[in-house]
């Protein structure tokens, strides 16, 4: 009997027991689809976090007051000293000042630093306009360099300038979410209008380019205004929230960090062992974030592996039961002239067909599910997950299809026929 004939017999075996075949394929399908989707969720989350951080630029550093320890969640646990500085009590000197920021812009002492921007970020600023009011998630008072460092651009109107800073101009750039909260008109119509920030009128001069949301956080719910005006009217002249620093390139970030630390150590009379400030590079944030998303991917992968295993056990179960059930059929086939090889080849092809059809259906379903956006990010299919899931399903299907069939085929026909 040739292979085409064996294939035809196997196909008949698959179609003759539709419920059994469907159940077997369902086990494979669910296992394969689960692995593909869960790994894609982990992958997508990791890709989304990474790209959000990468949009900050790979050559930026952030100086914050207080000491952070890299052991905590996200590696950014702020100590009590930092909290103290942040609340900006009037009785003690500020930790980070605009003078610190000026000092970092020294091209001689900080050769690898190309831009420096002092930042205050008062919390809970309420913007109101024509009866509408909105608590803005992020308000940033800074200089024009900040836009370069953070890769921000305006989609309409103009950016803030050095002369705005010098003249303490009360101008503001708003994100699209702020614009939408204040007015139902298109964002551009706000340009030239005065909005109240905690009661002080600021003129909208530009709309920030949309960044999209990263997870639950809306990156467009924010405003940027000149540092001087924000300090005048909103935050007061306390501590800076941070200083944003740009290195000349991604390769000089580490050198720039050393230069920044040296300058600030001199100014603050601190030593590397006991500092009142911390310098974080975007690379270190990226690696902290990657380690979290990496853990997430592994966890989801483990869950997926368990579901694949359960699917595999289902396949084993059905294969074992059906071959046992079909031992009589094997006996009949042997009695009318099938030899051992012909029986094994038929069951091999049957098991392959079930596993391959179930696996392909699982890949299709997994790929379809991965088109759905979950929590605002795109799922990313890992080709390896597809390969491993399919390979495992195929291996389980083949082994548990063939092994019992091989045993049944080795029986003397009379024993197979008598099998109940």
């Amino acid at each position, binding site marked *: *009997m*040739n292979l085409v*004939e064996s294939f035809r*017999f196997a196909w*008949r075996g698959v179609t*003759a*027991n539709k419920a059994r075949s469907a159940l077997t394929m369902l086990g494979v399908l669910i296992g394969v689809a689960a692995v593909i989707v869960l790994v894609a969720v982990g992958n997508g989350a990791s890709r989304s976090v990474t790209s959000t951080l990468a949009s900050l630029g790979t050559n930026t550093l952030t100086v914050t007051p207080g000491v952070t320890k890299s052991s905590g969640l996200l590696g950014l646990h702020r100590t009590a000293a930092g909290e103290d500085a942040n609340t900006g009590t009037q009785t003690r000197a500020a930790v980070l000042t605009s003078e610190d920021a000026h000092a970092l812009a020294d091209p001689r002492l900080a050769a690898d630093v190309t831009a420096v921007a002092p930042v205050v970020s008062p919390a809970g600023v309420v913007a109101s306009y024509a009866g509408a009011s909105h608590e803005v998630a992020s308000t940033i008072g800074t200089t024009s360099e900040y836009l370069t460092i953070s890769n921000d651009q305006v989609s309409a109107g103009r950016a803030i300038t050095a002369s705005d800073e010098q003249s303490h101009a009360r101008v503001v750039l708003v994100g699209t979410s702020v614009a939408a909260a204040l007015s139902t008109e298109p964002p551009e119509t706000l340009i030239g209008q005065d909005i109240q920030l905690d009661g002080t009128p600021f003129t909208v001069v530009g709309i920030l380019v949309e960044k999209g949301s990263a997870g639950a956080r809306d990156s467009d719910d924010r405003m940027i205004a000149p540092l001087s005006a924000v300090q005048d009217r909103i935050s007061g002249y306390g501590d800076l929230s941070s200083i944003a620093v740009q290195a000349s390139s991604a390769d000089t970030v580490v050198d720039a960090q050393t230069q920044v630390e040296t300058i600030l150590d001199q100014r603050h009379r601190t030593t590397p062992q006991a500092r009142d400030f911390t310098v974080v590079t975007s690379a270190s944030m990226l690696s902290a974030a990657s380690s979290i998303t990496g853990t997430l991917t592994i966890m989801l992968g483990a869950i997926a592996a368990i579901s694949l295993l359960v699917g595999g056990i289902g396949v084993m179960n059905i294969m074992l039961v059906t071959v046992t059930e079909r031992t*009589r*059929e094997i*006996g*009949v*086939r*042997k*009695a*009318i*002239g*099938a*030899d*051992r*090889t*012909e029986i094994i080849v038929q069951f091999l092809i049957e098991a392959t067909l079930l596993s391959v059809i179930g696996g392909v259906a699982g890949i299709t379903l997994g790929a379809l599910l991965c088109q759905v956006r979950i929590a605002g990010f795109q799922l990313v299919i890992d080709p390896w997950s597809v390969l491993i899931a399919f390979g495992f399903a195929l291996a389980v299907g083949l082994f548990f299809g063939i092994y019992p069939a091989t045993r049944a085929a080795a029986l*003397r*026909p*009379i024993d197979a*026929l008598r099998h109940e």
Partner: protein
Amino acid sequence: MSCPAVIELTDLHKIYQQGDSEVRAVDGVSLRVDPGDYVAIMGASGSGKSTMMNILGCLDEPTSGTFLLDGVNVGDLDDRALARIRNRNVGFVFQHFNLIARTSALENVELPLAYAGVPRAERRQRAIAALTQVGLAARLDHTSAQLSGGQQQRVSIARAIVGEPVLLLADEPTGALDSHSTAEVLDLFDGLAVEGRTLVVITHEDEVAAHAKRVLRMRDGRIESDTRQAAVTDPPPCWNRLGAAG
């Protein structure tokens, strides 16, 4: 006779080990069946007739003694060659039909030819011819669930004869059938005997044995009596009567 015997058994034994005791299911049988003969093997249960049938059909191997099937010593053959012998030289009819479930009558009958490597078109043609011979030309596409017991047994007879085997073996072929279906099956067997086929039928019913040209009675693994009811070259004893009735 010039052509070799279809079956030639010499001092055949089959001994099972059952716990501590030995069961001598077949205990020293020597037998010769010539081409064209129609033999009924009778006996009570436990007489060894089923074991005989399994050995004759190459489904089981004897403990000792030789078995020549159509001149070939079956004891010398490996699994593959035995499969070929079962496929080409023996046609089986079982008590419980043993058709492949959820598969049409035509496909069941084609099965031995498929294992023999007969091309599809010829296979189909021969299977249809065999089913027509047993009177089921109108039910080619019925599965066993859609056929009565008598019809299923006729499908299994068609499956047994489609490969033109030298020996047709039937194990209690009427054991699961009503009297009407029994008559139909026995009629078919008579017809096959008239065509010159060699039949060996295992049965415990006298009605079945009455159709055979030769009746062997077994007891405790031995042949107790050997009665000839008609000559090998003659038609089977019931042929004329049934022929007249039909």
